[in-house]
């Protein structure tokens, strides 16, 4: 049963075709990734979903057209977008406050989650006092406490160093197994997509179209060793092949 469904979604900025033809679906409790090169138009897709931009084509949630009234998504932007002037606790409660909850009540709701997110003891810190990994976990905490139908995660670990990123991917996979969020993740990291997802949509370079849909049949919890890891590597190689063949070698621009 699919919750989010996109049919033939297109988007151009002025004369610049960014999204050529995107059709995809995300089922309840499913972790789906969109994998594509930088500048392909991945973030633009989230702008359409969150209503920041308008495009063509159909976007359905639970079978009904997406409009500004139904708020289905908890959105985590590409940069962590933590407010430097708010303490971590108050950054975490932001979504609840916007929904109309009193700040005090929101704090009570959010506080017990800090341990699970590895942020216990940092409630009163400002974002600038946290490491990159902690900031991302704080941003994710702010996202999930909104209790929306679905998570939209835009390259949540893109700015982290390789070691931290791997640690965060393992942590997120474990968190997801506990919570079974319906999630759509944007990434340009093949390994990350394979490690976290049930399914992957591979995007071409701009103007983006979906060049392949790939199921990831690996057992959970995902592991970094043994048979499953070899399977994962094979899958990664296959996906890399697809991306490199779909992308003309004109070099890609960074966002």
């Amino acid at each position, binding site marked *: 049963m699919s919750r989010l469904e996109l049919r033939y979604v297109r988007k151009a900025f002025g004369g610049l075709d960014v999204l050529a033809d995107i059709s995809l679906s995300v089922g309840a409790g499913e972790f789906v990734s969109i994998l594509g090169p930088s500048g392909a138009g991945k973030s633009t897709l989230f702008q359409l979903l*969150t*209503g*920041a931009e308008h495009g063509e084509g159909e976007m359905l949630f639970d079978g009904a057209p997406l409009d500004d009234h139904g*708020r289905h998504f908890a959105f*985590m932007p590409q*940069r962590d977008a933590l*407010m430097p002037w708010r303490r971590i606790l108050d950054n975490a409660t932001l979504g609840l406050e*916007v929904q109309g909850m009193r700040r005090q009540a929101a704090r009570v709701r959010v506080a017990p989650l800090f341990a699970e997110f590895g942020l216990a003891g940092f409630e009163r810190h400002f974002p*600038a006092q946290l490491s990159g990994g902690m900031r991302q976990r704080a941003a994710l905490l702010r996202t999930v406490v909104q209790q929306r139908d679905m998570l939209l995660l835009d390259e949540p670990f893109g700015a982290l*160093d390789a070691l931290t990123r791997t640690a965060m991917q393992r942590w997120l996979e474990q968190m997801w197994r506990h919570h079974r969020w319906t999630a759509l993740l944007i990434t340009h990291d093949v390994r990350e997509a394979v490690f976290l997802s049930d399914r992957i949509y591979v995007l071409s370079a701009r103007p983006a179209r979906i060049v392949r849909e790939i199921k990831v049949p690996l057992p959970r919890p995902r592991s970094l060793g043994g048979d499953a890891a070899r399977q994962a590597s094979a899958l990664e190689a296959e996906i890399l092949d697809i991306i490199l063949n779909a992308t003309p070698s004109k070099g890609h621009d960074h966002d």
Partner: protein
Amino acid sequence: MISVGLLLVAWELYATYSGIRPTILPAPSRVFEQALLNRQALADNAIPTIGATLLGFACSLSAAFVLSMLVDFFQPLRRALFPVLIVSQTLPLVAIAPLVVLWFGFGLAPKIMLVALVTFFPMLVALVEGYESTEAEIGQMLRAMGAGRWRIFVLARLPSALPYFFAGLRISITYAVVGAIFAEYAGAAKGLGIYMLNVKNNFRPDLVLAAVGVSAALTLVLFGLTVLLQRLAMPWERAGKETAGKGAWR
């Protein structure tokens, strides 16, 4: 600090040993001595200047804040207003000050107006650019959370403008003092500006310099207050400079 001290020493030596008359260039020691002797007159004249500075600045700040919000919500207003305001900044104070005094008299009103004239635009620009510095992602995220324009303004744009606001404040507060003194110079019953004019006409450069010293001290105190205010208003700035939690990657 050291450079100021050296300058004073050099000035003292020059004034003492070059044979220049104290009615042309008094030594700092003499300026200081006369300042002490005339401290009552200096204080009496400093108070209206402080009043005009603070009142004028408060008016211009309130006006700049209201207008900055209007400009932020209605972008076309910006294109309509800014050219006029930029022109207002090119008006030479020497020409404008006597006119304003002519129109509005010797009272407080012309002083407030001149202080406002020189500080309003820098504050407006600081605020408007501050709002604009809001991270686009934060705006998009708030919109996705369901926040309207007003919520986004209060939650994100206003706090984002704080560093710009305080930068503008530090600059404007020095303009404000100069503006007030200029207005008094052009005509006033009391104030550092008119005091400077009077003692100059009495061939007392030492007292002119004493008044300059008082206005400089006043500016420094106000400047210090804005720095203090910023520290209190933006505790996260200092917190960010300590590195608690940095380097822990787990």
